């Protein structure tokens, strides 16, 4: 915590007093700096930290949000672990995450490579067009995709019929609902990730490719030896953000098929389940316990992600 670098009034405090006053005096002298950064810490304490501690307490209570709380021991957790709906929600969330993330990141990579090519004209147009879905509200997206995946008169069924195939009642099937949700996620986030990959590609120094060429490396070799290792940290970043996002899918199913997740509960994700239990059924204590269940799930996933990085720690250089 060394000496202050920028000190507005260094001469006022005599040096003997400065050492006497110690930390408290030094803190007092920088009161304006502390004041300037304090709003965030105060807000986080009140609306971030306290709720987390409170949710721990709440998860051991039985409470409808209005009447008296009563101690419920581990019953909320016990109920959660034995409720098939909870496990269905966990399964659905994972399935939707897999259906959406893998194609989404793959498409994003392809688009980024195409955009990176030096032949591309009107790159800005493409960038804006691909990014546009990402700033559109999820409620609007869910309404529009609802008409595309509609059971009888939807656009998708029309396309199937044109191809000589039969209509499918998408929103009456568990997998159909999950597919529709995944398509929405892909549509909204593929362009976003492509833009990030593109920036990653652009930040790889062209000198590396030139050197490889001089050394007689083929295009394929350059791709696997230069492009992939340099892009790895960025791919990891997109993987982590889509994991966090994927665990929190809520608006798409809620607007598309309602609070119960539609036919067979196909759209019942964890956050939708949490929302329904806490705010539709008013099981507040139980909702807090589900929040912790979700937290553990996200933590497990993050550890898996982390192990995935640790497993291949070969490239720390490249883009930071």
């Amino acid at each position: 915590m060394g000496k202050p670098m920028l000190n507005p009034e260094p001469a006022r405090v005599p040096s003997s007093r400065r050492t006497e006053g110690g930390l408290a005096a030094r803190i007092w002298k920088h009161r304006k700096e502390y004041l300037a950064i304090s709003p965030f810490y105060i807000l986080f304490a009140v609306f971030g930290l306290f709720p987390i501690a409170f949710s721990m307490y709440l998860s051991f209570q039985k409470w409808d949000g209005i009447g008296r709380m009563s101690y419920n021991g581990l019953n909320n957790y016990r109920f959660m672990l034995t409720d098939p709906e909870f496990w269905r929600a966990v399964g659905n969330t994972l399935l939707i995450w897999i259906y959406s993330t893998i194609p989404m990141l793959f498409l994003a990579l392809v688009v980024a490579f195409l955009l990176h090519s030096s032949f591309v004209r009107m790159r800005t147009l493409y960038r804006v067009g691909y990014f546009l879905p990402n700033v559109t509200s999820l409620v609007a997206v869910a309404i529009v995709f609802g008409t595309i995946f509609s059971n009888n008169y939807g656009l998708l069924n029309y396309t199937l019929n044109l191809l000589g195939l039969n209509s499918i009642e998408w929103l009456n099937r568990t997998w159909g609902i999950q597919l529709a949700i995944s398509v929405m996620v892909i549509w909204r986030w593929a362009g976003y990730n492509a833009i990030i990959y593109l920036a990653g590609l652009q930040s790889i120094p062209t000198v590396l490719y030139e050197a490889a060429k001089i050394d007689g490396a083929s295009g394929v070799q350059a791709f696997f030896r230069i492009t992939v290792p340099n892009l790895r940290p960025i791919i990891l970043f997109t993987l982590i953000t889509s994991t966090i996002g994927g665990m929190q899918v809520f608006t798409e199913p809620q607007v598309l098929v309602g609070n119960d997740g539609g036919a067979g509960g196909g759209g019942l994700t964890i956050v939708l389940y949490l929302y329904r239990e806490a705010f539709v059924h008013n099981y507040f204590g139980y909702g807090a316990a589900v929040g912790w269940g979700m937290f553990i799930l996200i933590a497990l996933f993050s550890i898996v992600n982390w192990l995935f990085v640790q497993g291949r720690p070969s490239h720390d250089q490249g883009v930071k």
Partner: protein
Amino acid sequence: MKARSILLHVGLTAGLLLSVFPFYWLLVMATRTTADIYSFPPKLWFGTKLGDNVSRVFENIDFFGAFWNTLFVATACAALVLFFDSLAGFTFAKFEFPGKKILFVLLLATMMAPAQLSLVPSFVIMAKLGWVGSFKALIIPGMANAFGIFWIRQYAQESVPSELLDAGRIDGCGFFRLYWNVALPILRPALSFLGAFTFIGAWNDYLWPLIILTDESKYTLQVALASLNGIYLSDYSMVIAGTLLAVIPLIVLFLFVSKQFISDIAAGAIKS
């Protein structure tokens, strides 16, 4: 080379069409009657009912009410975030004080705290404060955030010269004047991104407003739209027209800031 270039553009254009098609489809449906929307085969070209549909939106729901609510919340969120984040980000970038490193690491660590975990207790706190049903609950908890402070700090470190601050000090500027008169003008590019980012996020937010806003007259556009979607199945062209109206302002805003916005998003991802 030429064949490759054509193939490349065909691929990119196909992707672009997929990206833009839902907007086209929304526009087509908004110009059609409900019967058209439910017809099979679907009508793929524009109809003539846009005016009718839009006027029914204005008759049946308080669209402008929801619009102003959303505009107010999003603007307030953006303005407050800009102020508090730039003040803190600038301080972290250009000043030394005891505990600075630890405080900054702490700030970064809070980004990992899962928001959904505290959905229920946050609501309970809002209830205790008497903020349920009030915009305060949508604005105040997020008015200083770690991401924005981090973003401004990075930018201020690179772009605000310490010599300029020293010069300001010699001219008698106090701490706040240094921030307001010296740093803030330089930080403008970083601020415009953070402002647009916060505004778009607040405009599109759904889960938290859905929980907090109990009175219909306070609904934001997203909550109002979602409730329309469930009710007016027989007048779906109106729901679609409302969706279109809710989406347009943001698209216009985005097109204005898009170029810088997109490169900033990418830069933010690469930095972190």
